[in-house]
């Protein structure tokens, strides 16, 4: 659920990705011609779970790896939210998209009451069961885990000797916490911190969803502790310290491809698994920085990564 909210970043992102996908659909035809030289394989439509930088980068990786190996690829990288992308996958409008284990399980497990945990394998197993009935398949999940991170500034971490979230328990009464406005009613946020860690902050400031306001507030000492995303490029850029979630409050949000096996054959599935194998929290964070901070094109960033990892050989 929280994933979809990043897309509220605005129409600009959507508009941009519309333009991008429009440009790319022009290129697809050529790609189709190229693949005609080799053995012609099927057409696969790559989507996103929601249109934000990280998801688009990974979707580009899927698309380029498949295209390189002779598949005809179409891209739908401007889908707004999981509320749209998941039905699209079920109806066959898209054939594969990068997903996040915890968020996907929470979404598809709504009816069965399945809940996401901090264990990636357990989440994946639970998703498998639910998706099988729908004719969909979750492929291998990567190490890259984009989950909620409890973050402090380097100064605060040093002054108060903080390394783990549980280090906050005794001093939380003197600290101000900042996070998304929904924080007071979300299990991963204030209620969970209280229940699992016994943390009760002096006060809470409603900011944005891991966005610029939260960063500004943390940087300007308006809040002492803040909630960001673990793969957010600003964490390393600003020298923030992520406190270790030592009591496993946050759900495992490892990035994994979810696909329709009728369209994505065994060979293609293996290609996507190869991508997952190379992704880690730290390398996807660096790629996010290239798009979010250096304003590079997700397609170029994905291509450079795939080449470096030898996936386009």
């Amino acid at each position: 659920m929280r994933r979809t909210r990043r897309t509220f970043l605005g129409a600009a992102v959507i508009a941009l990705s519309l333009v991008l996908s429009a440009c790319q659909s022009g290129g697809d035809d050529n790609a189709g011609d190229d693949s005609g030289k080799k053995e012609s394989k099927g057409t696969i439509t790559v989507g996103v779970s929601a249109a934000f930088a990280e998801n688009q980068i990974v979707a580009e990786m899927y698309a380029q790896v498949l295209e390189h190996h002779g598949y005809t690829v179409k891209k739908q990288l401007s889908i707004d939210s999981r509320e749209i992308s998941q039905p699209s996958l079920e109806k066959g409008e898209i054939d594969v998209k990068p997903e996040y284990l915890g968020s996907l399980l929470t979404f598809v497990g709504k009816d069965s009451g399945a809940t996401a945990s901090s264990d990636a394998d357990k989440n994946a197993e639970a998703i498998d069961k639910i998706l099988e009935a729908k004719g969909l398949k979750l492929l291998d999940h990567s190490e890259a885990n984009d989950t909620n991170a409890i973050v402090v500034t380097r100064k605060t971490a040093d002054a108060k000797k903080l390394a783990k979230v549980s280090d906050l328990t005794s001093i939380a009464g003197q600290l101000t916490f900042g996070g998304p406005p929904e924080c007071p009613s979300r299990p991963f946020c204030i209620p969970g911190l209280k229940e699992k860690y016994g943390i009760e902050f002096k006060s809470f400031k409603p900011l944005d969803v891991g966005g610029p306001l939260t960063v500004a507030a943390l940087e300007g000492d308006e809040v002492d502790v803040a909630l960001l995303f673990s793969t957010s490029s600003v964490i390393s850029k600003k020298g923030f310290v992520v406190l270790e979630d030592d009591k496993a409050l946050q759900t495992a949000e490892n990035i994994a491809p979810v696909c329709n096996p009728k369209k994505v054959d065994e060979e293609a599935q293996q290609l996507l698994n190869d991508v997952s194998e190379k992704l880690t929290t730290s390398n996807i964070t660096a790629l996010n920085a290239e798009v979010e901070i250096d304003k590079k094109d997700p397609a170029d960033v994905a291509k450079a990564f795939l080449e470096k990892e030898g996936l386009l050989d």
Partner: protein
Amino acid sequence: MELLSQVFDWFLAPENLNGPSGVVARLVEHMQISALAVCLGALVGLPLGLVIGHTRKGEFVVASVANLGRAIPSFAILAIALPFTIRAGLGLGFWPTVLALWLLAIPPILTNTYVGVQVIDPDTIEAAKGMGMSEGQILRKIEVPLAAPLIVVGFRTAAVQVVATATLAALVAWGGLGRFIIDGFAIRDSVQITAGALLVAALAVSTELLFGSIQKIVTPKMLSAPVQPGQGAAT
């Protein structure tokens, strides 16, 4: 219709009304920040408007500059101001919002004030001069009272805009009635969103009505009296 009854129930629940994040507290915050912004706007708009109206000089330049305040979206001002106020140690939400609302409040007050003074019949001013009034006396005894109804219209426009826009404060972590709308969006609580929107609308309408009655009070009798045929008041 179901939504409306849920909203009605929302307003009846004591936990929504009381406490530091209840309706009463948020309403007070909203009125405080709005009143401050309008007062600050008056501090600039009123004297400037009177001077321009009285001297009939500089109206183009000042009006153009002031109207820039209307052209730049308040949200943009908020976003631009935020990093500076944080750096200056002025905190997150309050001062950026005050700045944005202040810039919003100036143009209507300024414009209405100088137009109000300017449209006074030059003969009236001449007559006052002929009676030996000083410039200051003309301003105080002739121009301000005659311009008062239009000046109040300026305040009314400014106040209504400010009250409606003060909702933005919630976007930068301050309080006010916008809190209900922003927080409601975050947890997809359409009842709370609707309740917040109704509160803002109600406050804006009340502001409009309040200034409407002030306007009636300050309008000089001779201006508000209907023109009788044969009196020749309107030539």
